[in-house]
């Protein structure tokens, strides 16, 4: 492999503009050499902004221009485009969600195995120090047996979308559950293990869910809820309760509160990294960690930290949710509008 990895970015939407392309500028060991998007205006705008040499409306015919690719396309294209690239022996970092079905995930995992190249998934919260501490606390047994959990993540949707694909079921594969929820559920399953049962409710009425609620039972016996929203501000933390204590952790930050059982005391603060003192992790730092890991995996011929197999678990849960969906009761809508006249 060259000293500098040549990267193609497929998809010129907001995530490429505000996250991947500015982050890649930070790397000495990687360079964006190709931008692909069907929207010529977008791809030329970003090519000019980030000084990218090649652009095209599709990846076909451009394989000589890059060694690895970042896929930031509408969700429904993640699997087909990944499969195409993996078949050409290109390493792939695919934005979350990895795919919109388990069968697509399996095809991608198999294709990566077969071609012997890295398949990484853009679940950048795995690189949060607080989330790593959470894994360590749980796995060490410091909290004892995990009894319950409570995850709430919601905000009034404000992502600077450049198209409507997030809101089209066929392109996005779903709504808040598969978009924000894939992060939330990935954290939950990564920390606490796989699920055994799920009861799922959402407010979609032929379109995509903006609000949903999961009642979950895990294989380790822990029970809890996950609530997600695109129209409400929720707590945006996870609470994990064990028999010896509990903690509350920010879902997209390094803030943690530790509680001892039956005690009025709380340890409340930011998780920092002894290797990088006096630093916090902003948005771009997380993308930097994710891309650095992807490049290291390619160079060292190892699995990325978030590989296809580990990202698959959340898709399996999402698929189960949508399969057994029930309507979410919206309390103020209990009476249908009766139009008079």
């Amino acid at each position, binding site marked *: 492999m060259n000293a500098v990895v040549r990267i193609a970015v497929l998809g010129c939407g907001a995530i490429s503009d505000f996250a991947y392309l500015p982050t890649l500028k930070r790397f000495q060991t990687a360079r964006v050499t190709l931008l692909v998007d069907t929207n010529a205006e977008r791809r030329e705008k970003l090519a000019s902004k980030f000084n990218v040499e090649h652009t095209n409306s599709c990846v076909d015919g451009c394989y000589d221009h890059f060694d690895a690719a970042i896929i930031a396309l509408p969700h429904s294209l993640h699997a087909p485009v990944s499969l195409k690239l993996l078949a050409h022996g290109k390493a792939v970092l695919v934005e979350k969600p990895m795919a919109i079905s388990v069968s697509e995930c399996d095809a991608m995992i198999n294709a990566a195995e077969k071609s012997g190249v890295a398949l990484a998934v853009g679940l950048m919260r795995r690189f949060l120090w607080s989330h790593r501490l959470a894994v360590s606390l749980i796995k060490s047994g410091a909290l004892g047996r995990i009894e319950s959990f409570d995850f709430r993540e*919601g905000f009034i*949707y404000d992502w600077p979308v450049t198209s409507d694909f997030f809101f089209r079921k066929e392109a996005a594969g779903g709504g808040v559950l598969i978009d924000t929820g894939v992060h939330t559920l990935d954290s939950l399953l990564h920390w606490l293990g796989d699920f055994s049962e799920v009861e799922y409710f959402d407010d979609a*009425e*032929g379109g995509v869910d903006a609000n949903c609620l999961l009642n979950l039972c895990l294989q380790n016996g822990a029970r809890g809820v996950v609530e997600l929203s695109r*129209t409400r501000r929720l707590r945006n933390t996870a609470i994990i309760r064990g028999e010896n204590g509990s903690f509350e952790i920010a879902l997209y930050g390094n803030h943690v509160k530790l509680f001892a059982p039956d005690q009025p005391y709380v340890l409340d603060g930011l998780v920092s990294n002894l290797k990088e003192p006096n630093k916090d992790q902003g948005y771009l730092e997380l993308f930097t960690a994710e891309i650095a890991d992807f490049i290291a995996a390619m160079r060292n011929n190892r699995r990325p930290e978030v590989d296809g197999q580990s990202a698959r678990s959340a898709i399996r849960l999402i698929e189960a949710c949508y399969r057994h969906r029930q309507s979410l009761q919206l309390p103020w809508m209990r009476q249908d*509008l009766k139009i008079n006249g």
Partner: protein
Amino acid sequence: MDRSDRILITGATGFLGGRLVEVLANRGLRIRVAASDFRNCARVSRFSVELVKADLRDHESLIRAAAGCSVVFHFAYRWGGTLNEQHQVNLNGTRTLAEAFLKNGGRRFVHISSFSAYGDPRDEELTEETPQRATTDAYSDTKQKIERVLRELHSNRGLPVTILQPTIVYGPYGTAWTTRLLEQVRTTRIALPTGGLCNAVYVDDVISATILAAEREAAVGETFLISGSSPTTWRKFYAAYEKMLNKEAIIDFNDPQVKLEERRQRMRQSLPQQLRGALAKRPEIRKRLLNLPPQRWLIAGTRRLLPGPAKAKIRRGYESLWELPLNSSETRPPLFLPDEYWRALYTAQTRVRLDKARNKLGYNPAIDLDEGMARTAEWARWANLLSA
């Protein structure tokens, strides 16, 4: 309206438009949502609707949005800018949309205006016959002008338009008369003048009227005021939000603390206080001013002549001048003092008459204040707006 209609809703990502999408989509109708920014589509994309990008400033986008639509519900209004800019954007955008609709041979164009189109609030019964007064308020003035243009298009070119003029609309997802007031009650004390009437109407009643406007033949070319069945008082309207938040925020406008606050606000706006505020933030400028000749001589003389305790007292007084905020002893929430515009609204004895809407449109408001506020409270609790 039926499945053969393609229905365009502008402003569909807003309060009223969003509720209309919910109701019509549940009837299985074909809806095209015009959105100026897709990021606001989370609520409406729960339904199987077509999303298109359209903006009142982009006339081509409006023409594309109207293509093939037999019914248009026009809720969109772009705020901001000068009076002239609001006119340009909203008036020209609406005209373009209506002309595109006419060209397509559409069946009904429902325009959602406002009772603000009558101008400043007044102490009388308000009917569709009440003359619209000139106003300096940009929103009211723009609404007047838009109505005029649509009536002209109806008279001259046969635009099948119906204009609705809703009053104080509240309910789930409401901003001006719901979340704004919740925030006001939560964070301030509100000096509310007594006695004024509030012509409140629950969102679903406005949506009933909107649908009737699209379906009733007799509605074509007409304008209808839309309100609740009878006015309440502003005190009762605010009290509903106080109840939701379990907090007393309203104080009587004649309360002595209102007078005190008025004096304080005048003081804060006075030149010496503004100067004090500016200097408090810039110690280097204060130091430089003290070093200028007259002050420097005065300080030097004082140092020589005054005894130690007196000098210390003066120094403390001088330092506290910059350290203490004007209301340092004030621990209560700030007081919201309505300005002239709001006072006029809160004191007006306006009674909106619904006779025309009842007789010609078949409108019959079904949700009284208690029921409407109960539903609003359920939504607000769900939306996490009632927690501390």
